[in-house]
């Protein structure tokens, strides 16, 4: 029987849960049904895996999947490693922390599109940096400035992601690290551990659950994000979300189930990444808590 307290808790959560159930779960179920070919608007009412087979057999599928993985993995790795070290640096620095805290939290509040514009202004071949180098005689023309955007290396996209993600990881990890560092860090130092040993033997392992958690969120975002790769990504291959969007807005309504199949695959990858996070965090926490 549900206790009075549980009932109260569910009651308080109802507004938030309703939004999640109707807009997220409802939308997800509809998308899943459409991915199975159920689309009465064009007279398709049978459920089939035909569109899944079609997507998986397309040559651009693996290219798009690996391109999306490449962007998500590289930006997540850079953000996780840099964010973790930045959090540790912040703990140990004697520089005024309120100023640094403002500096690293600021990017979290800036929307991706604004960041994208900012970085395009600076790093595109017609951008400020390229013009400065041209004026300084370091490059002969703007075309010889390395291409960051609309290319397969996706460096511009990765740069935009990490500009926002490093502060996010730092923000998530810093608080946890601070709690560990003040007490257990001192205990380790007292037991003759050097600052490096304190970090690798105490701070890092104990921060792992929060690092994995931040990393999983960042990966899921980078993998599923649409707007930046849509604006600044290569013509070919497209990232999975862009590919899904192009199919979704196609005038040919029969492409709609294809878009939903791609969405399902993106969702599955994100769900698996969150599941891996859950397992790893559980493994860490089970050991000592």
């Amino acid at each position: 029987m549900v206790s009075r307290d549980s009932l109260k808790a569910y009651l308080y959560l109802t507004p938030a849960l309703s939004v999640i159930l109707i807009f997220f779960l409802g939308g997800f179920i509809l998308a899943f049904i459409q991915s199975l070919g159920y689309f009465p608007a064009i007279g398709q009412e049978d459920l089939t895996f035909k569109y899944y087979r079609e997507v998986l057999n397309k040559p651009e599928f693996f290219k798009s999947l690996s391109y999306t993985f490449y962007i998500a993995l590289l930006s997540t790795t850079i953000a996780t490693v840099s964010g973790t070290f930045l959090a540790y640096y912040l703990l140990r620095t004697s520089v005024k922390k309120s100023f640094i805290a403002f500096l690293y939290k600021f990017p979290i509040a800036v929307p991706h599109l604004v960041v994208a514009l900012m970085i395009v202004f600076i790093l595109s071949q017609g951008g400020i940096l390229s013009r400065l180098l041209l004026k300084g005689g370091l490059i002969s023309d703007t075309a010889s400035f390395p291409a960051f955007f609309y290319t397969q290396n996706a460096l511009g996209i990765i740069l935009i992601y990490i500009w926002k993600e490093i502060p996010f990881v730092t923000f998530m990890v810093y608080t946890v690290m601070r709690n560990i560092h003040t007490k257990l860090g001192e205990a380790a130092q007292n037991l003759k551990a050097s600052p490096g040993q304190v970090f690798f033997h105490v701070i890092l392992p104990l921060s792992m659950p929060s690092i994995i958690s931040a990393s999983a969120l960042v990966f899921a975002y980078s993998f599923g994000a649409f707007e930046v790769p849509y604006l600044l990504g290569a013509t070919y291959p497209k990232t999975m979300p862009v590919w899904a969007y192009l199919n979704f807005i196609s005038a040919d309504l029969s492409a709609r189930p294809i878009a939903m199949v791609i969405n399902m695959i993106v969702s599955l990858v994100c769900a698996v990444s969150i599941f891996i996070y859950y397992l790893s965090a559980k493994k860490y926490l089970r050991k000592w808590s």
Partner: protein
Amino acid sequence: MAKIRLNDLTKTYQGKPAIEKISMEIEAGELMALVGHSGCGKTTMLRLISGLIQPDQGSIWIDGLDVTKTKAEKRDVVMVFQENLLFPHLTVAENIAFGMRMQRSPRKKRMDKTRELLDLMQLPDLEKRYPSQLSGGQQQRVALARVLALEPKVLLLDEPLSNLDPKLRDDLRDLILKLHKDFKMTTILVTHDRDEAMMMADRIAVLYYGKLLQMDKPINIYNKPVSREVASLFGQCNFIPGLLKDGVFQTEGYRFRVPALKRGGRVEACVRSEHIKVVRPENDRPMGVITEKKYVGGQSIIKVAVGNLIFIARGSNYFDLEIGNQVGLDIDWTLVSFNGLKNQA
């Protein structure tokens, strides 16, 4: 064993001094207790000696070497923290071997030492457990084993027994004393428990708002406190103002013959409650009326009003005393100290 010397040690936090110009010497192999109220600077002293924080002024010397600027990991000093601070992600054995691992001791040596310490600390078959799977007493034993594994010259104990129940406290207290002797370490114990300090320490240093008030053997701290603050820290005390002259202490119409003192003048006598006996009223003794009686196990704490003064005494429960009874007070003046003037008897 190492001799420790502190010279004019000062540490401030946000402009307020946590400790102020403290100088002391702790002999090699000595067990010194730092005693004082909460926030008097006891833990700050330990953290300074361990190197976890730096002093604003003054210097710290260990065995003749100035270690003021030496980092914590380079000092031959280890500390056991109040909350034990075991690493939750490491097993008992890994916790004990942690310091040796950081110093890159060979694996075999680490394992042998860990086993030896597990036996010594009476922690058999617990090496594979995590700290969360241990009781409070076991955790504190592991915390002790962990620092002993480094065979330090100086051991700092920051209220290591405060989180334990009375039985475990007694056991661990004996163990610490045994380890202090067996390992021949200079030990500094921070405690706010006066009995613990009395029982364990060779000498006691009393801190009060960051200042060192008195440093002496436990018996002298108890019987010859240099100030009202020190006296109060170590038990119930009656403070009686009066005039001391030619071996006579005069107060509130009473004159008491006291052991001869070198100096006299206006003083405050510090009379411990257990040095006052509640007896039948007799003319040559202060007489008063019992105003309060509290039962505390083997004896009672009795308040007696004598004129304007209130005396707190301890009396046997077998003696029939009730509130309102007229009684006499028998004070053992040989054990009374006079406001900073030490009793020379």
